[in-house]
């Protein structure tokens, strides 16, 4: 069995038994999704790096807290909690549901949108403009690869609520990205 076929949980268990190669494989697999989740959730690059560091320190120092199942859900739960705490510490008021999204799309002229580069930039800003709960659902779905049920457990809401948030997120993005689609 190649390392690509070994589950996250098995790699983590192997690391805990002393296999550093297993940790290297697991870390290589998860580093970018976790980092991007923190970055796209709304933190500056330096803060995202700090949170990423703190996340792994918690994982390494409190690995006994992992129940052996669904490692990704556990990791992204820690990441989400650290991110929320960071917003609180900085006294950042979370953008409320009534986000004015029109200005974002208006910043890009039709001419510039022909270049794919601007569409890539536009989707980044569009995701950033989503209300936090929708943005969270979108990012967790795409970076963590969790099922709807796992997403619901992580965000402490029901499956239908998660589906609604994802649907609203996609609809908002389609509106903002109309010229790119």
């Amino acid at each position, binding site marked *: 069995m190649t390392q690509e076929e070994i589950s996250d949980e098995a790699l983590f268990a192997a*690391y*805990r038994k*002393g296999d*550093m190669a297993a*940790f*290297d494989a697991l*870390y290589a697999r998860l*580093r*970018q999704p976790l*980092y*991007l989740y923190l*970055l796209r959730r*709304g*933190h*500056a*690059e*330096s*803060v995202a*790096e*700090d949170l*990423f*560091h*703190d996340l*792994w*320190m918690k994982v*390494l*120092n409190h*690995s006994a807290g992992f129940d052996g199942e669904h490692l990704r859900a556990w990791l992204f739960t820690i990441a989400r909690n650290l991110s929320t705490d*960071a*917003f609180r*510490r*900085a*006294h*950042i008021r*979370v*953008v409320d549901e009534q*986000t004015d999204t029109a200005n974002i799309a208006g910043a890009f002229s039709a001419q510039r949108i022909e270049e*794919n580069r601007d*569409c*890539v930039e536009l*989707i*980044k*800003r569009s*995701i*950033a*403009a989503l209300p*936090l709960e929708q943005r969270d659902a979108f990012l967790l779905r*795409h970076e963590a690869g969790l099922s709807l049920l796992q997403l619901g457990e992580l965000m402490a809401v029901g499956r239908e609520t998660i589906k609604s948030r994802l649907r609203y997120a*996609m609809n908002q*993005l*389609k509106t903002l*990205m109309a010229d*790119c*689609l």
Partner: protein
Amino acid sequence: MSDQSEQRLEQLYRQTRREQPSAILDQHIRQAAVRALARRRRTWLLGLSSVAVLVLSVSVVLDLLWDDMTTLPRPERVDTFPDRIANDASPRPFSELESVNGYEDSIARQVPERLNGLVPSPSSPAPEEPRSRFAASREEAARQYRESQSELALAESTALHEKAQVLKKATESRPEDADIVIPELPYKLGQLVRLAAGLQGEQSESGVISLYLDNKLILSVRSVIEGHQFKAWQGSEVIGVKVSWVLTPDMFEQCQAGPVYLACELKAGVTGYFESDRLDHIAWDVPHG
């Protein structure tokens, strides 16, 4: 149409996925993973030594019973540890490569030595009471093991308290230090990191951050409802690097607003601010004397 637009969105999103953590951060985390493994091995060995002591105690009991001895010899008290810590008022020196968990490592190294005092002495005099039952002897061995663990815990908390008292006395002698905030007891003496020659910093579990210069508390920061409160030793100048808590506009050099965040650079010369969670990001300049 709907599927195509969603596919296009997915495609565009995949193209945004370019940012990665820095190589230095990767290296730092890997080193922490190696250290975490080493700590687990030491803990396992510690647990093994504890079990070995207990097994040895029980074995000695069995031997005594077989040899028609009737009472358990009492293990020696571990009374050297608190004395050793009380006499050692200065923090142990750390190498420049010491990690944030260096203090825990040093404590772990001490433990096997402490446990040596728990082994029953085989040369104790034979008692004169009637023979004990085997089950009662085994329970007695377990009770004494539990007692010894309590003694260790007491010794540790005593050591922490005594160290804090030493530090408190060092600051109480100067009237102008009335504003120095001493961390409240009890708190866990957690991460002790050497920041620069003569300087040591620590962060308690409650989030209080303290800096010591030559064993004297010079700066303490703790969270309060409206932000962070800090007190500085008179005559010291602390230059902060970044801040991530309550800000006032006059402290900003420039700010950049994002959809949900505000990132600001501090003006040069702002003193007494630093990141609350990452001691290794702090740069300090404290004049001596």
